[in-house]
Every structure is written in C-alpha cells, then in structure tokens.
C-alpha cells in the first residue's frame, strides 16, 4: 500500500496476541515510515471492554507515531458498545468502508 499500512482485526484476539499486534504495528510504522494507517474492523461483530480498549490503544498508538489513522467497517453493535463503555477514539477518523477510508486517508496525509 505504499506509504500506508493496512491492519485487519479479527475476533479471536486474546491478550498476548493483541499486545503482539500493538508492538508489531509500532515497529512497522517506524520501519516503513508509514504516513497513514487503515484499520479494518469489519470482521468484528461484537466487542467486549478488552477489545474496545485494544482498538482505542492501537488507534492512539499510530496517531502518536505521526501516522494518520482511519478506522473503517465498524458494525452497529460495536459502535453501541464503545459508546456505552465511554471509549472515544481520540485523533481517529472513521469511515464506513475501505474505499471511503482510503480516500479520507489520502486527504489527511496530503494535508500534513
């Protein structure tokens, strides 16, 4: 994806795997100097508070590393749970699907 990274999150993530993912992502951003990260969560149908926090952490992480982040494919049940849990996603834009997400990401990266 050139200067963009694509992260796909699936349901069967447990603690260790999530931490590994966070480390991997940070390392990848550094190595490739990625300017944008697209996180696809369309496979996630339900979330618990753990996954919710994980999404929030990963989003925050890439933003801090100066990569614009766009989250795509959030399902209604996931959105409701995140709202109930009070988890906002600071500095993260969201889009309905990958196409719109990519367009948004390009715009944001171009701005900086």
């Amino acid at each position, binding site marked *: 994806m050139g200067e963009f990274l694509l992260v796909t999150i699936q349901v069967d993530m447990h603690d260790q795997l999530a931490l590994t993912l966070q480390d991997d992502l940070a390392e990848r951003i550094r190595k490739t100097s990625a300017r944008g990260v697209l996180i696809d969560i369309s496979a996630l149908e339900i979330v618990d508070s753990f996954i919710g926090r994980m999404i929030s952490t990963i989003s925050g992480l890439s933003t801090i590393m100066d990569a614009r982040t766009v*989250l*795509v494919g*959030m*399902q*209604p049940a996931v*959105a*409701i749970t*995140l*709202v*109930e849990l009070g988890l*906002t*996603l600071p500095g993260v*834009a*969201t*889009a*309905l*699907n990958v196409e*719109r*997400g990519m367009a948004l990401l390009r715009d944001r990266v171009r701005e900086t």
Partner: protein
Amino acid sequence: MAALQQRTIEAITTNEAALLARWGEGLESSGATRDARIGADELSRQTRDFLRMFVAASTTGDAGSVAGKDWADARSFLDGLSRSRALQGFDSQHTANFIFSLKRPLFEELQRAYADAPAQLSDQLVAISDLLDALGMHTVRAFQKTREDIINRQQEELLELSTPVVKLWDGVLALPMIGTLDSQRTQVVMESLLQRIVETGSEIAIIDITGVPTVDTLVAQHLLKTVTAIRLMGADCIISGVRPQIAQTIVHLGLDLQGIVTKANLADALALALKRLNLTVGKAA
C-alpha cells in the same frame, strides 16, 4: 355445604321462564337491549345460559367460595362475556349490570317461595346476594384485564410504528421520531438506524424530532449517544425539527450538543446534507 337450599333451587328452576323474562325487563329498562351491538336473541341466550350455570353450581358449591372448581364453568362463561363486551367497547358498568340486574327477580321469587319462613328467607337472600356480588366482581376483573391487554398491545404497536428509517436520498437517511423518547425506544431506534447506515452506506443521518414533545437531560443523553455511535461508524448526523420551546429548554439546561448541527426543519437539514454531498438542486431548463 350446598350454597342454596333445595327449596330455593326448585323455586328458581320451576319459574325459570318468568325469571328470565323479569331479568330481561330489568336489563331493558337499564338500556342494555337498546344497543345494536348485542342482539335481543343473543342477550336472552346469555341470560338463560348463565342462570342454568348458576343453578348447577349452587347445588353443589360452597356458599362463599365462587373461586372453587364447582363454579369454574360459570367463571369461564363470565370471562368470555366480559371479554366480548370489552372488545365491543362497552363500559364496565354495563357489563357488571348483566349480573346485578339478576338480583331483584331472584329476590322477588324467593320472597314468594319463603313467604312462610322469614328466617330462612333472609338466610337465602344473603346467600344469593353474596354469590352474585362475587360473580359480579369477577366479571369486572375480567373486563379490566381485557382492557389492559388491549392497551398493552397498542403500546407495542405504537413502539413498532414510530421508529421507521427512511431514505431521503442516495447517502441520506432520515429518522422521524414521534412521541416521548425513553431508554427502550432509543435503544431500538439507535440499533435500527445504525444497521441501515451500514446496509446502505449512507454517510448522513437526519434525526427529526418535530414529533418529540419535550426534551430533558435524559432524552438529550440518549440522542447524544446515538449521534456518537453514528460518528464512530464514520457517518454524521444532523438533528432537525428543533422547535423554539425545545431550543429554549436546551439552552436553559445548559446541554452541550458537542458540535452537532441542528436545523429548524427537515427541509433545511436535507439542503445541508445535499450540500455536503456536493449536490445541487436546480430547475429543469
């Protein structure tokens, strides 16, 4: 112990026709027969059936206990009667009157039958009175229950009716809300709106609250949650139909709308949505 003495039962069964006629007159004078919803034939059939059940049950049943199994037939007859009266739109007075107007004819009959035995007369009068009172109460209870069932069903229907999500344009959904917003309704509404956003890929949702009478902090909280969820998913929300009173309430309560755009009516909201989508509306050449 049987509810009524043998002499009473005989007096009733022997004079059944006369009793039914006098009962019928009583119902007529109270206006029960003038109503076109119940035919005269049907009414006289109901009176006859009930009197026979009454007699059958009181031969064996216990005086004070209309709840016992001897009275089961009579009770379910009255349940059916109340229910049909309630569904036809009669009030509880009319329905209970069916039972209570039987008292006078029965009392008069007993006075004739026990002319020679005043002590027994008063005993039997009390027994009949107690029985009819209990049956009357049962009838009213059954009537009330039917009314409550109707109300509950209507409430459910109202809930379903008033949360439709409509498509205004490609990429623009509208949710006209009618009535008071409570937690349950907002939940249902939120879920169906979010689902439609995903299904249609619509980027803009317009929530119209013209039909919402009041907005308090609780309602505002529900709305904000819905809008936050919409934004999390990557779409945006416009609230329309903000009436002057509601605007004042929002200001007085110091509610923070967190940058949600509000419009006075649906037309303005649609215009804004189209603008955001880079669409213009023009006259045909």
